[in-house]
């Protein structure tokens, strides 16, 4: 059905004026697209230029040094970020993937509806509010900042992403595939675990990777959970440095050396996140081709 016509197309305006108006408006739209692409490319290119100057071997292998001493690196923040994100994945992925499979294959009725609705709502919750939550339930009772509390905060941010992408992935599997297995007398749980899930595997992994890329750059929820540290923190129960946190703290400092490290951190973060994102997309495309 066509949209309702409020005004006739021609009316008093001539064809030529309508055509030039059309050309003008399309040009404006092109301008918008150009502006968007240019602005965003500008930011990334600028971060590459400033960041590349900061990157060297020391950057990846050394601890940050006190102000005034040249050099130093962010190795503890890199390790800390990896540690926190890995723990968060460990918390979020089993729950998220199983809940996603439930929503996609088994869930009908109120439970599935509420989980779907609430995980959509959870996606929209500001990450800093989730940081406050993790602070309240873990940092306050244990009386110290820790990598674990940060991982819990990030896991909550990951959860809805993993749930919904897993649901989508298992839904994309044509019904005929598990049905074929069921027709051979395979029990439902085997049809799910051994037929549908392996077929949907690439989609599930894509979602999981995208959720990792999403939380790897989060800084707000780490402020009062991981807190940051200038040293190695092998114990996940102690304050830990993380890359986004370090960028925030060093960028706001008045010292050029630290600002330089912050730019290096920003570039490493961009490269890391783009790499995860592109891998995820390529994997998904490969599955679609198959």
């Amino acid at each position, binding site marked *: 059905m*066509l*949209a*309702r*016509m409020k005004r006739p197309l021609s009316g008093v305006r001539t064809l030529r004026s309508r055509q030039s108006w059309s050309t003008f*408006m*399309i040009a404006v*739209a092109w*301008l*918008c*697209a150009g*502006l*968007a*692409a240019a602005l*965003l490319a500008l*930011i990334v290119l*600028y*971060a590459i230029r*400033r960041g590349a100057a900061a990157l060297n071997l020391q950057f990846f292998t050394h601890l940050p040094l006190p102000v005034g001493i040249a050099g130093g690196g962010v190795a503890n923040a890199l390790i800390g970020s990896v540690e926190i994100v890995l723990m968060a994945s460990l918390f979020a992925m089993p729950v998220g993937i*199983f*809940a996603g499979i*439930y929503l996609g294959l088994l869930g009908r009725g109120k*439970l599935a509806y509420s*989980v779907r609705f*609430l*995980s959509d709502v*959870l996606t*929209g*919750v*500001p990450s*800093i*509010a989730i940081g*406050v*939550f993790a*602070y*309240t339930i873990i940092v306050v009772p244990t009386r110290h900042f820790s990598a674990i509390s940060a991982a819990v905060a990030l896991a*909550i941010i990951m959860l*809805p992403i993993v749930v919904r992408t897993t649901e989508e992935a298992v839904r994309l599997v044509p019904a005929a595939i598990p049905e074929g297995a069921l027709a*051979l007398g395979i*029990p*439902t*749980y*085997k049809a799910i675990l*051994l037929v549908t899930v*392996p077929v949907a595997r690439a989609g599930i992994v894509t979602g999981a990777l995208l959720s990792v890329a*999403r939380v790897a*750059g989060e800084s*707000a929820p780490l*402020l*009062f959970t991981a*807190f940051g540290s200038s040293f190695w923190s092998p114990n996940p129960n102690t304050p830990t440095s993380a890359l*986004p946190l370090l*960028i925030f703290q060093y*960028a*706001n400092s008045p010292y050029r050396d630290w600002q330089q490290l912050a730019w290096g951190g*920003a570039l490493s*973060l*961009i490269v890391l*996140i*783009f790499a995860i994102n592109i891998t995820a*997309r390529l994997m998904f495309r490969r599955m679609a081709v198959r």
Partner: protein
Amino acid sequence: MATESIEIASLPRTTTTAVRLRGAQLADRLVVGFFGLAAWLVLLVVAALFVTLAIAAWPAIKTVGWPALHSALWDPNNGKFGVLSFVFGTLVTSGIALLLAGPVGIGAALVLAEVAPKRLAGPVAMLIELLAAVPSVVFGIWGLFVLAPVMRGAIEPALARTLGFLPLFQGYFFGVGILTAGVLLAIMILPTIAAITRDIFEAVPAHQREGMLALGATKWEVLARAVIPYARSGIIGALVLALGRALGEAIAVAMVIGNKPAISASLFSPGYSLASVVANEFTEATGQQYLAVLVGIGSLLFVLSMLVNVAARLLVWSVGRSQSAARA
């Protein structure tokens, strides 16, 4: 495919079919129950989030109370906790962001979905989706070192020269401030708006355009009178989603808003926002009450984002319904 894992031939040899069937039914119930448990766990997490934030905010509500919402006096050392300037900063910066990024994002999405040749549109759309993944702290550092000086040196003076008769564009040029935060947020939500609206435009059925073309419409008339109206509810949804992101953004805003708890008519002046005050002052808060108020602000932000989300859903739902009613 995982067909190799289904070993039909081995079935009768191991056990009798009846025992196997009963075992399978039990296993079925167990596995389904296990998946259901995971779903319940997700519910539990959200419920815990609600309850914890409500309980944690309670001391702030009790001691500072609702008057805090209509006072802009923020002086934690003397027990003054007016949060109005934060609410103001959050709303104004998000408003500026939506005003700037909305039209540009929709325009870009129109080009990508409807006008540009597929060969160009595909990679550009992929690039924009990739840029939506750039972390906010990266936007923040760029805003602090690049955008703020440009705003102070070029854009704010130019605005003051041309639109200086408005109180909005008067006063000193700080570089960091409400306007800079709004512009930075606009850049941050731009990829979100463009990527989602593009998907929505692509979902508009071809016959909508064909009908319009058949009536002799120009290219723009097709877009403005068939494609955009059809996609309206989705566009609103995308905008509200972007608004939610802008409202809750803490880090990037904290880096460029100026961190001054004040309400000023001028967009050039420094301000503060709900999310950024929590980000900046949480670890430095001294005293139970100060901390409780900051937790309260976090909860306020949570409630605000929930309201925006639910409003978006209702809006999309009602627009969608009136559209299908008009179509029926």
